């Protein structure tokens, strides 16, 4: 098992290495380079030279890279050009908000997606199945930012039940107030992810329900309920685990957009603001943190999969 985890980690190394080079190179690919970014376009040559030396930009590029990488690994992404605060501190302030949004959205997605998938897979081709498949198509097809706007129109503008701009209130401090601010963004994101979840899980369930071993189980005299619970669910959820990685991608992307719709003070919104103010250290920091979260989740999922499936030998 340990060997398997190590092997998966080793496979990640080249990917992360190339990705880090890409993120590092971003700042150099921008017209004007790092100096132009920091000083603006009207700087004189003396200022430029001083800064180049201060930042060590006159050293070989490889040295600069490893220097940067070394700092990044320890969590030092530099200082925001805009607020002059350490990037890691800014991220630390915003991350809890995004994690809270993600947690509640996941809950909604699972509570919505799994029953929908089950109900439609158990009656393939029925009106219920058609209706629920239509629902998942809608959940997937309606852009989160439009759904968010519609929700704001209804609940904030028309009914005035909920705030149109969401603040971050930690759930454990004031659960009710937190939910008032969280429910619309979490629902927007959760509905979208539930669509992904329902569609894949339904496909997985339908194919497992048609498998030979289900016929064998029936020939043993097992009830349909037991066959689904004991035999089908395990087999259907297994390939589904691999889909979680894909779901995470839509999740992170969805979070960036959702936070923008509800002006929710999370990591994604900070990234967008950083892009519009061309705050490159902050952009780099946000992307690296999201990348690490995404990769870590995918790795966990892979290892979990190998652990649960007896057919995979991790020797």
């Amino acid at each position, binding site marked *: 098992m340990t060997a398997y985890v190590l092997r998966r980690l080793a496979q990640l190394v080249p990917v992360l290495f190339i990705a880090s080079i890409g993120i590092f190179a971003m700042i150099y690919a921008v017209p004007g380079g790092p100096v132009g970014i920091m000083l603006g376009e009207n700087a004189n040559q003396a200022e430029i030279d001083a800064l180049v030396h201060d930042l060590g930009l006159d050293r070989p590029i490889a040295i600069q890279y490893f220097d940067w990488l070394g700092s990044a690994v320890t969590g030092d992404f530099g200082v925001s050009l805009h607020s002059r605060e350490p990037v890691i501190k800014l991220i630390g302030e915003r991350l809890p908000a995004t994690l809270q949004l993600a947690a509640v959205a996941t809950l909604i997605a699972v509570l919505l997606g799994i029953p929908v998938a089950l109900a439609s897979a158990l009656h393939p081709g029925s009106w219920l199945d058609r209706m629920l498949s239509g629902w998942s198509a809608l959940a997937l097809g309606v*852009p989160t930012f439009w759904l968010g706007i519609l929700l704001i129109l209804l609940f904030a503008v028309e009914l005035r039940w909920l705030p149109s701009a969401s603040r971050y209130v930690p759930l454990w401090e004031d659960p009710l107030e937190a939910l008032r601010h969280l429910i619309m963004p979490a629902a927007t994101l959760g509905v979208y992810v539930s669509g992904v979840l329902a569609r894949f899980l339904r496909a997985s369930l339908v194919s497992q329900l048609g498998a030979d071993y289900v016929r064998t189980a029936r020939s043993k005299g097992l009830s349909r309920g037991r066959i689904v619970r004991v035999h089908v669910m395990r087999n259907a959820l297994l390939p589904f685990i691999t889909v979680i990685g894909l779901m995470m991608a839509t999740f992170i*992307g969805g979070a*960036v957009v959702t936070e923008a719709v509800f002006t929710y003070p999370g990591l994604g919104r900070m990234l967008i603001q950083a892009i519009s103010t061309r705050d490159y250290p902050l952009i780099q920091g946000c992307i690296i943190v*999201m990348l690490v979260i995404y990769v870590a989740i995918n790795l966990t999922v892979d290892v979990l999969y190998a652990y649960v499936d007896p057919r995979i030998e991790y020797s």
Partner: protein
Amino acid sequence: MRGGARILRELVRRKGALLSLAFLAVLVLLAVFAVALGFDPVKQNILHSLEAPSRAYWFGTDELGRDILSRVVYGARTSLMTAGGAVVLAGVIGVPMGLVAGFFGGWRDAVLMRAVDVLLALPAILFALALIAVFGRSQGAAMLAVGITGIPGFARIVRAQVLSLRQRDFVVAVEAFGGSSGYSMFRTILPNSWNQILVQVVVLCSIAILLEAALAFLGVGVPPPTPSWGEMLRTGKSYLHEAPYYAILPGLALTLTILSFDTIGRSLTAILENEDAAVTRAEGVAS
């Protein structure tokens, strides 16, 4: 293409797919003949700003008194062109990548698939944001960003297809007659992969349109004054109290477009799966 006509016949037999095809056809026609039909997305009329839908302005007007319907039609143009360009870009790079990786295997496969892994290491929208952060905001950058994030889809699907076809006897047979690698790849494997590629094109169209709109909504997509649906939603959101239709109607056009591509994509998948199942059944019967 063999079976193209048959697949189209099957497609129009399905109500959802037929409706989707019809909607997309109308949209494309409007976008192509927008000028001839007299749509003007830039003419301002401050006296008529933020007017509700009426006989004169079917979709109402925006904050500068521009006709929203005209802007929606031109937004379709932007959307379809950006997405179309992105899909072509992704296909032109991704398909040969998958073909070579799957057919030759070995170090070529390792290198190409690691490249794909890198592209997949970031969620598509983050990747696009990073690219735009570097290249600045333009229609070309949006197209490039969306296109590059589409490459892994093509590469993986084609590679999987090649790997499964390579095991099939009719591909081995070509080698047994003395056919070259090129012949196997382009004359035998590729013609048997068009269906899968077609499905991927349709699926990617819906993803690309969504992504393009999302970038515009975030304010980093195709820059104004070019009309785009995402940009309209972004602005419309500021006028939710005064003019709710401003955000609703362009969003509706966007949603219907995405749903149409998605519906067609799912119908295609189902049709091709049915065909495969029919073949498998025939094979099963004989054994």
